[in-house]
C-alpha cells in the first residue's frame, strides 16, 4: 500500500527492465488464469455450424482475457509505476484458517462450536488482540447468532454437535 516509486526493495525477483512491477505481475497472473480457463474448457464442444457450443463462449472470453493480460504486462514494462505492495501473512493466514475451520466444523459440530472456533482463530490475525475481552465478545456473539439465525430468522441451522443430538 505504501510502496512509492523510487524506493526500491533490497531484493527483487522482478528484472530491472520492468518499470511497473505491479501491472507486470498482474498481467502475467491474468494470462495464467486465462490459460487455465482455456485448458479447463478444452473438452467442451465448439461451434456447430452457426450455433454456439457449450465451449464457444468460455473460449472466446478466455482468449480475450489472455490478450488483455498480455497488454497489461506490456504496459507494465513500458510505463513507470509503483513497486509490488508488501504482503503481510498474519491477517490473511488466520482469517483464512478461521473460514476453513468454520466450513469443516459447521456440519459435524454445529454452529455454536464453529462460530466460537472461527472467532477465536480469526482474532489471532491481529497483534492487538487482548484475550479476556475477546473471549467475552466471542461468547456473546455466538449466543447472539444462536438466537438470531435459527429462532428469529427461522433458518435451518444446527446448533449443537451431531453426537450430542443423537
Amino acid at each position: 500500500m505504501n510502496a512509492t516509486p523510487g524506493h526500491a526493495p533490497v531484493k527483487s525477483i522482478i528484472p530491472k527492465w520492468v518499470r511497473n512491477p505491479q501491472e507486470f505481475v498482474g498481467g502475467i497472473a491474468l494470462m495464467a488464469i486465462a490459460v487455465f480457463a482455456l485448458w479447463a474448457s478444452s473438452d467442451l464442444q465448439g461451434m456447430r455450424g452457426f450455433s454456439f457450443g457449450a465451449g464457444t463462449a468460455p473460449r472466446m472470453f478466455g482468449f480475450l482475457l489472455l490478450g488483455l493480460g498480455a497488454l497489461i504486462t506490456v504496459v507494465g514494462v513500458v510505463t513507470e509505476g509503483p513497486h509490488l505492495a508488501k504482503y503481510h501473512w498474519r491477517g490473511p493466514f488466520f482469517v483464512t484458517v478461521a473460514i476453513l475451520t468454520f466450513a469443516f466444523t459447521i456440519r459435524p459440530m454445529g454452529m455454536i462450536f464453529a462460530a466460537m472456533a472461527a472467532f477465536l482463530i480469526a482474532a489471532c490475525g491481529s497483534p492487538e488482540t487482548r484475550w479476556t475481552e475477546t473471549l467475552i465478545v466471542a461468547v456473546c456473539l455466538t449466543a447472539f447468532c444462536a438466537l438470531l439465525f435459527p429462532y428469529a430468522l427461522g433458518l435451518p441451522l444446527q446448533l449443537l454437535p451431531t453426537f450430542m443430538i443423537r
Partner: protein
Amino acid sequence: MGDVFSNLGLGFGVVFQFVQWTPAFLGGASIPIPVNILLCLIGALVGTLVGVLPGIGTIATVAMLLPITFGLPPVGALIMLAGIYYGAQYGGSTTSILVNIPGEAGSVVTALDGFQMAKKGRAGPALAIAAIGSFFAGCVATVLIALLGAPLTKIALAFGPAEYFSLMVLGLIFAVVLAKGSVLKAIAMIVMGLLLSMVGSDIETGASRMAFNIPELADGLGFATLAMGLFGFAEIIRNLDAGGETDRKLVQEKVSGLMPTRQDLKETAPAILRGTGLGSILGILPGGGAVIASFAAYTLEKKVAKDPSKFGHGEIRGVAAPESANNAAAQTSFIPLLTLGIPPNAVMALMVGAMTIHGIVPGPQVMQKQPELVWGMIASMWVGNLMLLIINLPLVGIWVRLLRVPYRLMFPSIVVFCCIGIYSVNNAPTDVMIAGAFGLVGYWLIKHDFEPAPLLLGMVLGPLMEENLRRALLISRGDWSVFLTRPLSAVLMAIAAALLILAVLPSLRKKRDEVFVESEN
C-alpha cells in the same frame, strides 16, 4: 399521468398493508401489524448499523445481510433489502463525517468537507444536511422511477436478443469508463467476471463447464458467495494489513446542535437540487451508480461556487451535493434493473441474486405480471428514506458510540457473521470455502490495483450476455453483422464504441482522473 398515480397508489397500498396478527397469549384477539413498513424500518436500521462499521461498504453490507431476508415473502424481502441498501449508504456517510473513514467509495467525497465540519464542532448540521439532502433526492427519484418505469418497460418489450446484447455491452463500457483507475484493467476485470460466470452447467446443452466434477460447482459460483469473499473477507484482510487501530481517530467532542441554521438551509438548497438532478441522471446510466454521482456532484459544486477555496475546509455545500447525488443515483439505478432486468452496478447485481433466490427473474415481465412487487418496492423506497430521516437524527449518538468498538473485536465478529451468512444460503460448507478463496483473490486484486466491482458486474451480466448473444446469432444464422444492421442495436453499439474511444483519449482521461484525484488531496 393517471397511470403513474394508480401505480404509485398500488405501491403504497402494498407498503401500508396490515396483517392481522393473532398471538395465542391474547386469547383470540388480533392486532393489525403494518408488516412491510416494519420490514422497511428494520432493514434501514440494520443497514445503518452495519454500514456504520468502518471497513464495510455498501456491497459487503447488502451481501452480509442477504440471508436474513430469505425467510420472508418476496415483496417483504425486497422491501427490506432496499431498506438495508439506503441504510448502509447513510451509515457510510455517517462514518465519513464523524471519523473520516468512508465506509464505501460513494461517501469518499462526503468525508472531504464533512469531517472538516465535524472537527469544527459542526458534525450535527453536517449529518442533518446529509439526511435532508438524501431525503429530498429520494423523493425526486421515487417520482422519476414511477414516471419512467412504464414507458421503459414498453421499450424493453420491443428489444430482441441483439438489442439486449448491445445494451449490456454498452452498460459494461459505461462501467469501465466511469470506474476509477486504468481502463485496461477494468476491462480485464469484467472479462474475468464473465469467465467466472461460465462455471457450472451450460444453459442450452447442460454440459458441465469448468466445474471439475465438483458437485457444488455444477450450479455455478454463487453470487452472494463471491461478493462476500471479494468485498467482505478481502476488506477485512486488507484492513488488518493497514493496522486497523492506528488511523482511527474519533471526533471526541460531543455531537451537539443537530439542527442546521436557516443560513445553512438557504445555502444548501440549490446544491441539493443540483446534486439530485445530476445523481438521478448518472444513476440511470448503466455502470454509473452512487460512486460516480457523488464525485461529479462535488466537482460541479466546486465549479459553480463563487469561492471554491472554501471547499475542503468544512463547506456545507460540499456535504449536501454529493450526499443528495449519491442517494438519487442509488435509487434511480433501480430503473434499469426493474424495467430491463439489467443490473447497472454491483449492488443491483446482488439484488438480482436476491430476486432469483425468491424465484423472480427481473425484467419487463415482472413489471407486468407482478406489479404489486415492483410498485410496492418503489413506494417503499420513499418510505425508507423518510424513516432514515426520522430514525437517524435522534440515533446519531448511538452510531457514534458504535464507532468506538475497536477493530480487533469487530473483525472476528464480521468473519463469523459472514461465514454463517454464506453457509445459510445453500447450507453448503463448500460455499464458505469458495468465499474464503475469493477473499484471498480479492486481497491480491486490491494489492495490484484491480477493482473488484467490475468483476462482480461481469459475473452477473455473464449468463444474460451469453444467452442473448447465442440467441441473436442463432436467429441471424450465424451472421455477426446483426448487431450493426438492426437500427436500435447499431445505435447502442455506436455509443459504446464512441465512449470507449473517448475514454482512452488522453485529454478526457486527464479530466476523468482529475475528478477522482479530488478525494486524495
